[in-house]
């Protein structure tokens, strides 16, 4: 018989003792495989719109999982090895060579590992289908998921577990070498000794815990405080837990022993002394389990809390399923027809709500900031308490109490966590035509009664005050509808969007709800999954430990049986011991969890203002259920192993709890609204239109594929750097066709991935059908000296296409503009031959961002080199496609400008710092470096040539964003000696400096977009006006510095563009 065959026989023969180890390994494989196959599931990736984010989250989660699984397997392997020491000793005694025994153990472990792997993958295949279904339900999408079997997942799982199995097998091999024969024989006899404890460490344990808990409840205001609070909380809790189990619990048990009356009462003697005897060996396990449970619970709660909070926020932002501002009768009628025409979502209530609007001033900028005051002529909305309560009644909200004269109740602005106390005592003054009315805040409610719109300043006053205000201010009449099942009103929402007028400010619950549900659902899934694995693993660890203990306790129970203890009493004792071992970490874990969650609640902004009681209760109940099952199973197996019988009621209870769990999960799945069948969008696709260039020339464009043989690609490392650039120039004449806004494959990618981040569905926008104003490959207009050249670098991960509007305008005014995509940073770049290269960035940290900027500078300088080649009559295009006629001659490389948005703006400045071929540049809303610690050299030392800063919006302190408020640009400004100008568009936003500024309003006219998305992307100012201003200032800057044409526009603020401020 070969050794291999002996090993096989051993496994069969010892199957029972192998079983526990077997199951724990199986459990690990199943969980890991399930997870990985979800990660690789193409169906889910298709279903999830922001699949790139998903991939990276999955990645992180699977790393955590691997770590966890390895520890878990090693732990159970150790326990198992200890059990087998004696057997190994016997082989040795029988004269088997150590080497042979080692090899036999190696084979055993290896055979079993392989069997486990195969079974695990089979089981995982079924389980992953279940989990996919859960994920898909949570996401509210509907994709058909067949049995998920992914070869990639199988390979991944196999590699990971083969490594682990190999490691444990080698450990098995080494077992025989590690110990002396005598130690092998005594393996199971090394009894745990009665632990010694001091009262001091017991007290210390309690002190540590109190300290940890106390700090978790402390408020924090800056990053340092956050760090120190986390530090103290964690150290306190961890140290406290370890001390608690190693001393305080022992002390407690010993005290229990000292109480003779109960200690000498029946089996208490045995139960308590057994616990004391084992506590030393168990204390480490119990501490780890308490901590793990707390972490698992917190993770799940954060996930559920975010999901729940997200739903809650959607409800708070849009209390009405549909709401719009009343317009003429035809419009109102047609809206009504559409809403009432939707039979699946019948109207529950319809309301007309009148709201007064006024100018105002507040005693604190928290209540009414300058920004809000600027965003609307009449920023303050006022509603009467009578009206409010009428709506509250219909929406089933709590009614407000009556309000005295000169008092008011605030409605909490969305996405803040102000409390009543922050407002109390503060005042707001309404500047009405005839008089100023000052009102004092006496309270706050979180429930708004009209759908959110910016500025979000709304107060409730008593009816008398309201009448007075209404008489001398403008009022707005809102119409609100509440319909059944409002989460699935996609069709009606689309239909309404198609007829909406901008001034009607139509908003729907569905739009708000869809926006971001993916992120939330995804969080809850991943965190829930990890939490579940942790909980199950902790349960399993206790199970294994208890079972191995009860096996070695068996003789003890036999003695008890001989001296007249009934099986029932023995079972009760086992039950009580298990209750202690399971109950203690449960109680302590839950206590820790309460402290941790209290901290996290203030740490995650997504959880701000979310009432977490419901998720907490839900999590604790589910957690308790799972533990109860483990408890029952453990007690059952233990009693079975001692007396061959189990306690029937425990078995029944386990089954009951298990059924309840299944019922709960079923109910959860059942009650989540079933996703409507996601038929791809069939409505009319929105065709985007770029504004006509205003210069005197027609515009031509061409694409060039550059391959830089001298540079290894810094992002992928295994090939040389490749770039796609577009050249835009004044064209001599029209060519056969206009260039597409985006090439088809890239358009498809952005339609599927980017469009969804603003809450729209793929297919709603005709991205691939959108054309530019430029003639493809048209011959270049002649110019004596050639046209000045301007380089354009887009924002971080943003494709070059989204700067087209301004670029075309510049080209039409007589410039050659070159736009550059930064391959592998840009989300997707399409190369010739329909090759799509997607972004390869990992985490967005300082390192990545600084590297990004480095690579960009190199890209831009390389492009400049290639332009010189073109000027020399060469064709750098990798495919050698013909260049537009006259392109080389048309370049004037003695006059070079550069500009860019965001990261592209920072790139522009840094390129100028490094390369004096560039004469002038613009940074549109780009931070020069990674602040506060890593400013770019250009921010430190400034420039000596013309440079213009353009900024948008406000910083988080409510100040206009400019070189006065941003450290990097402040330093740049101070150190720059050349011509400089800083322009701010306070009512714009970051994406004001991209095509979004003109495209978003086009979408908003035809589709339903959350007003929040628009406000956050491009701000609140009139969009065409802001675009006009931006393009004219940019043109003026280059006209002045590249063509030497004086530009009065740049001298002082213009009445034509009141949106633009000059920051001195």
């Amino acid at each position, binding site marked *: 018989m070969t050794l291999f065959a002996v090993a096989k026989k051993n496994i069969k023969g010892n199957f029972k003792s192998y079983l526990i180890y077997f199951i724990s390994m199986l459990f690990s494989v199943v969980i890991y495989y399930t997870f990985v196959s979800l990660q690789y599931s193409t169906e889910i990736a298709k279903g999830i719109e922001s699949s790139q984010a998903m991939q990276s989250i999955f990645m992180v989660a699977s790393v955590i999982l691997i770590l966890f699984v390895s520890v878990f397997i090693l732990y159970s392997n150790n326990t198992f090895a200890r059990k087998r020491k004696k057997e190994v000793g016997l082989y040795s005694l029988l004269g088997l060579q150590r080497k042979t025994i080692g090899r036999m153990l190696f084979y055993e472990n290896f055979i079993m590992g392989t069997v486990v792997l195969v079974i695990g993958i089979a089981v995982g295949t079924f389980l992953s289908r279940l989990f996919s279904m859960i994920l898909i339900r949570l996401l509210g999408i509907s994709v058909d998921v067949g049995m998920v079997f992914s070869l990639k997942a199988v390979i991944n799982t196999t590699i990971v577990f083969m490594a682990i199995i190999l490691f444990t097998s080698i450990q098995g091999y080494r077992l025989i070498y590690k110990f002396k024969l005598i130690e092998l024989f005594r393996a199971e006899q090394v*009894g745990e000794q*009665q632990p010694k404890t001091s009262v001091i460490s017991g007290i210390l344990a309690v002190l540590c815990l109190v300290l940890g808990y106390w700090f978790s409840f402390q408020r924090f205001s800056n990053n340092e405080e956050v760090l120190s609070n986390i530090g103290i909380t964690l150290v306190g809790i961890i140290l406290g837990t370890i001390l608690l189990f190693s001393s305080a619990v022992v002390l407690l048990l010993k005290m229990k022993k000292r109480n*003779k*009356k109960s200690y*000498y*009462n*029946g*089996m*208490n*003697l*045995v139960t308590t*002394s*057994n616990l*004391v*005897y084992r506590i030393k060996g168990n204390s480490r396990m119990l501490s780890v389990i308490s901590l793990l449970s707390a972490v698992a619970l917190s993770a799940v709660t954060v996930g559920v809390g975010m999901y729940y909070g997200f739903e809650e926020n959607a409800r708070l932002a849009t209390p009405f399923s549909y709401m719009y501002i009343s317009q003429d009768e035809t419009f109102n009628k047609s809206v009504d027809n559409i809403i009432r025409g939707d039979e699946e979502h019948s109207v529950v209530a319809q309301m007309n709500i009148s709201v007064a609007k006024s100018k105002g001033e507040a005693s604190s900028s928290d209540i009414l900031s300058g920004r809000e005051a600027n965003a609307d002529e009449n920023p303050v909305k006022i509603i009467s308490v009578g009206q409010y309560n009428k709506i509250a009644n219909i929406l089933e909200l709590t009614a407000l109490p009556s309000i005295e004269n000169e008092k008011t109740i605030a409605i909490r602005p969305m996405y803040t966590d102000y409390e009543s106390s922050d407002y109390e005592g503060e005042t707001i003054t309404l500047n009405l035509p005839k008089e100023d009315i000052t009102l004092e805040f006496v309270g706050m409610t979180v429930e708004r009664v009209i759908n959110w719109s910016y500025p979000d300043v709304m107060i409730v006053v008593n009816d008398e005050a309201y009448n007075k205000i209404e008489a001398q201010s403008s009022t707005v009449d809102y119409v609100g509808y509440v319909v059944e099942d409002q989460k699935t009103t996609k069709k009606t929402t689309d239909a309404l969007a198609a007829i909406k007028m901008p001034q009607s400010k139509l908003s729907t619950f569905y739009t708000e709800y869809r926006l971001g549900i993916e992120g939330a659902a995804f969080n809850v899934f991943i965190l829930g999954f990890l939490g579940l694995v942790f909980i199950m693993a902790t349960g399993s660890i206790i199970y294994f430990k208890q079972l191995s203990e009860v096996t070695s306790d068996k003789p*003890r129970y036999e*003695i*008890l*049986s*001989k*001296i*007249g*203890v*009934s*099986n*029932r*009493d023995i079972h009760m004792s086992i039950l009580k011991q298990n209750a202690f071992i399971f109950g203690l970490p449960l109680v302590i874990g839950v206590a820790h969890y309460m402290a941790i969650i209290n901290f996290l609640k203030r740490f995650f902004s997504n959880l701000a203002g979310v009432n977490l009681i419901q998720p907490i209760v839900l999590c604790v109940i589910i957690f308790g259920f799972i533990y109860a099952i483990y408890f029952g199973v453990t007690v059952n197996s233990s009693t079975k192993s001692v007396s061959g019988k189990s306690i029937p009621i425990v078995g029944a209870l386990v089954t009951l709890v298990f059924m309840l769990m299944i019922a709960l999960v079923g109910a959860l799945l059942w009650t989540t609204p079933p996703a409507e069948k996601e038929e791809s969008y069939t409505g009319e696709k929105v065709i985007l239109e770029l504004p006509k260039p205003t210069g005197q020339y027609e515009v031509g464009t061409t694409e060039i594929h550059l391959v830089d043989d001298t540079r290894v690609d810094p992002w992928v490392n295994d090939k040389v750097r490749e770039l796609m650039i577009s050249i835009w120039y004044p064209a001599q004449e029209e060519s056969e066709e206009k260039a597409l806004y985006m090439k088809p494959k890239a358009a498809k990618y952005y339609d599927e991935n980017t469009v969804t981040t603003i809450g729209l569905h793929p297919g709603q926008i005709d991205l691939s059908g959108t054309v530019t104003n430029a003639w493809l490959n048209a011959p270049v207009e002649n110019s004596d000296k050639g046209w000045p050249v301007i380089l354009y670098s887009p924002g971080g991960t943003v494709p070059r296409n989204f700067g087209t509007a301004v670029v075309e305008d510049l080209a039409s005014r007589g410039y050659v503009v070159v736009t550059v995509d930064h391959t592998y940073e840009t989300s997707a770049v399409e190369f010739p031959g329909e090759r799509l290269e997607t972004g390869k960035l990992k985490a967005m940290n300082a390192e990545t961002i600084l590297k990004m900027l480095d690579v960009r500078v190199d890209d831009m300088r390389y492009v400049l080199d290639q332009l010189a080649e073109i000027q020399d009559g060469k064709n750098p295009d990798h495919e050698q496609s013909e260049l537009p006629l006259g392109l080389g001659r048309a370049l004037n490389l003695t006059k070079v400008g550069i500009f860019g948005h965001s990261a592209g703006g920072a790139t522009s400045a840094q390129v100028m710092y490094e390369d004096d071929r560039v004469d002038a540049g613009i940074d549109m809303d780009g931070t020069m470096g990674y602040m506060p610690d890593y400013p770019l050299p250009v921010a430190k030392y400034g420039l000596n040539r013309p440079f213009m800063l353009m900024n948008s919006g406000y910083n988080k302190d409510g100040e206009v964003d400019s070189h006065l408020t941003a450290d990097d640009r402040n330093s740049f400004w101070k150190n720059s000696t050349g011509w400089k100008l800083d322009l701010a568009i306070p009512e714009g936003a970051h994406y004001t400096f991209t095509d979004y500024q003109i495209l978003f309003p086009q979408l908003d006219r035809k589709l339903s977009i959350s007003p929040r998305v628009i406000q956050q992307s491009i701000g609140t100012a009139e969009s065409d006006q802001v675009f006009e201003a931006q393009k004219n200032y940019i043109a003026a800057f280059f006209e002045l510095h590249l063509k030497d044409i004086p530009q009065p526009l740049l001298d002082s603020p213009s009445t034509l563009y009141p949106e633009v401020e000059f920051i001195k």
Partner: protein
Amino acid sequence: MKKVVEAKEIKKVYGLKGTVFPVLHGIDLTVLEGEFAGIMGPSGSGKTTLLNILATIDQPTSGDIKIDGESILNMNEEQLSAFRRDKLGFIFQDYNLLDTLTVKENILLPLAIAKIKVWELEGRVDEIADKFGIRPILEKYPYQISGGQKQRTAASRAIISNPSLILADEPTGALDSKSATDLLESLKSLNKQDKATILMVTHDAFAASYCKRVLFIKDGNIFTELVKENTSRKDFFKKLLDVLNMLGGSESDIICCSKEKYKREF
């Protein structure tokens, strides 16, 4: 006199179906109150099986057993446990002490299980500890004391609940001669002064010489019976050896050894 043990026609067959292995062939046994009876026999003769059956830990294949007037064969598990707790005391060769409990706790365990009041229970422990001379070690754990002390602890535990019958299974088997003699003396005085009924299984003639009556078992049958009556222990020991020689078998060597071993002590 009252019969504490009354066993009739006890048969025990091990094994299932084809391979049947009879151990006891129908043994009749009576132990009277206040008796100190011994059972001897070579290995495999069935003496431990008999003791286990009397101890209610094992069930006979057929036969009838009354202990203290109660028939133990019709009891269920619950009743048997209570019966063992209240009526029987055990002393085993390997002590069977719980290593998680102190000596004191080990001794009072049967009383604690019977839910006797604390004050009463502690009094009893002290009283018995004195009797066996283990008072100084009451707070120690089994792993901290010697074999002899362990066995005296076990004996203390066996008698603490005033059982009707004390069953001892090779109680001296793991002890050195001094400890063995101490223990046997203690059992003897227990029998004499407290009128305890003791049934001891042993293959050691020296230990058996402390009994008032010794039954010999061979191949599952009662072979013969020796009664001490007025003979001295030394003579009784010799008689026992004679019977053992007659029985023959593998055990003669052990007897020789034990003869040497105990020589000085007579």
